[in-house]
């Protein structure tokens, strides 16, 4: 796939320009979509509805931010959806065994990180294709989830464990400020720490980063572990949301996350993109797709619209950039 990156890596300043432009396009689309839904449905702007909408994309926010890190290194993670189910299973089992929410949280996050570590070692250390490795863990983690749950769901009654995903303050779900917090933390990590610079370096040019002693192999391992940890957090939120552990949760979630990250302007080939774009991508995706889901649009039509939005945004972006270049 990487052979299509024949174009020389863009200079930093220019890349920022085209990214800003992408963000403006996204904001415009978000406004248009919101106005459209507002006209079609008076109830769309009730505070309760906005809370529900944001909560429904909380998990997508988290895994997409993890996916952004991975795609900045030029990789991909197809296993996140399965990992959410697997980590949830481990967390719920640990919770029922010990009756301690803390142990449950830790188990879920560690389980997510474990799958991430498998991905990371195979991709970072053995330098195998991310697509293929995570395709294998996609099956592996889903299978393990099914084994853990014995293909059945497990009800959870521990209030503390359910708090993060289930609780609301009035119309504001607890999980929204939590996601905002994670966003701030990850932004600091990406823009203000040496690790963040390593992520961009590994994605821009692995070999140069290697020669410069930035140890991109190690960066890659940690990026996948980070994505796994976010999948573990997502698992906790999901279990809290539905007060039970479900073996089939998160099925094909990775497709949604990849779509949202691409919408947010992050390059598939690494080195270019920002977390803000992903947030906008998830918002657009969430407002349009979840708006359609929640208002009962034909599910097949939703898929078609999803495909057309993805293609449309990328196409629009390319055409605008081309015109600019001329």
């Amino acid at each position, binding site marked *: 796939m990487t052979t299509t990156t024949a174009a020389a890596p863009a200079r930093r300043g220019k890349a920022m320009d085209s990214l800003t432009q992408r963000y403006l396009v996204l904001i415009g689309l978000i406004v248009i979509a919101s106005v459209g839904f507002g006209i079609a449905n008076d109830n769309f702007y009730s505070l309760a509805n906005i809370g529900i909408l944001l909560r429904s994309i909380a998990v997508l926010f988290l895994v997409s931010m993890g996916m952004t890190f991975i795609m900045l290194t030029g990789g991909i993670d197809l296993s996140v959806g399965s990992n959410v189910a697997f980590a949830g299973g481990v967390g719920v089992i640990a919770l029922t065994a010990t009756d301690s929410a803390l142990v449950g949280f830790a188990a879920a996050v560690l389980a997510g990180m474990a799958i991430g570590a498998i991905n990371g070692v195979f991709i970072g250390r053995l330098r195998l294709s991310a697509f293929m490795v995570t395709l294998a863990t996609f099956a592996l983690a889903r299978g393990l989830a099914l084994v853990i749950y*014995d293909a059945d*769901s497990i009800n959870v009654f521990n209030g503390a464990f359910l708090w993060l995903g289930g609780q609301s303050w009035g119309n504001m779900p607890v999980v929204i400020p939590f996601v905002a917090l994670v966003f701030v933390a990850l932004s600091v990590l990406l823009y203000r720490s040496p690790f963040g610079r390593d992520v961009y370096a590994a994605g821009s040019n692995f070999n140069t980063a290697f020669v410069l002693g930035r140890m991109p192999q190690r960066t890659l391992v940690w990026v996948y572990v980070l994505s796994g940890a976010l999948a573990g957090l997502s698992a906790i939120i999901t279990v809290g*949301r*539905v007060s039970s552990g479900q073996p*089939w*949760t998160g*099925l094909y979630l990775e497709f949604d996350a990849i779509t949202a990250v691409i919408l947010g302007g992050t390059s598939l080939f690494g080195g270019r993109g920002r977390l803000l774009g992903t947030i906008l991508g998830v918002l657009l995706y969430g407002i349009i797709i979840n708006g359609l889901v*929640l*208002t*009962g649009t034909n599910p097949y039509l939703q898929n078609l619209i999803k495909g057309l939005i993805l293609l449309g945004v990328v196409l629009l972006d390319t055409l605008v950039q081309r015109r600019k270049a001329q």
Partner: protein
Amino acid sequence: MNFKTGLMSATALTLMGAPAVAQDDTLDIVFINDGHVAPYHVAWLKGFEDAIDAYDEAFPDTKITGRWLSAEGSLEKMIQQTEVTINEGPDVMFVNAINVDAFEPLVAKAQEAGITWIAVHSPMDSADYSFTLGDVVNGTNQGLAMCALSGGEPYKVAIMLGQAGNPSGEARREGILKGIGACDNIEVVAEQPADWDTVKAQSIAENWLTQFEDLDAISGVTDAYMYPSIAIATNSGKDLDFYGYDGDIPILQQMQNGTVKADILLSGTREGWNFVQMAYRIHEGETPDKVYDFFTPLVMTEENHKTALDNGFPEDVEVYYVDEALDVAAKGYLEFGPDSVK
């Protein structure tokens, strides 16, 4: 037994007398289902939509509207859809909950908002009403039919199950095994879950046909399994008996040539129509039974029914013959249309 059903459903409810309605009277019905893809779902949602239109036209004094949502198998999506729907405040909600326990808080919230909550398939104490299917009884009838039609010789059957842990699937399995237990010539050679999935059913059926060369019959807890099973057996020239469950029209049609021996007439179309009828009755002030059991007869050909009776099949099991079953399955209004409540 031809026109019993209309009467039956009429007597199943207590009439409380309908008050006169104003022009601006409205009835908004929302049906939140667990999926939209399986043939049964398709028929179900179609029956529901058709019934909404028919009732709206037949009762000009009341504006009757409705819509369905599909959670596409995701509990999370279903909870979101339910919350948004409660905010919009319809009159009646039918919810086919993927996990009943997760919906308890939402039932309370809906009732606070003055919405009538009808739990679909899995009964809920807290719900205003529960719409149930009698899975064990139906399964038993299927098993009994197999006993009576197997002819007394050793008879090998493989049973395709629902998703592990799914209450409806487990109940149907329990019933089928209970029915088969009535005779001792039937041997269950395999039981395997196909997760309500036609593709999985296809590979399982394919393996069974290689694995058990002398297999006599395939039984399933849903007609969705019958499509690939019948197609594979027919295409490999094997003459098997099939025992279905659901009353899908294409499967009922396969009874006429003798491929399918017995089926349970749930019929998605009928169920969809019955929903709207039920909602309308509640709207008119009637109170159905708190647990409303859907009337689901067994379907056989007349000839097979006679053979079965000769072989000791219980006479009190309600049986529809194929033509009649096809008729009510295709035309939900025969049993549950506006005429049934006028």
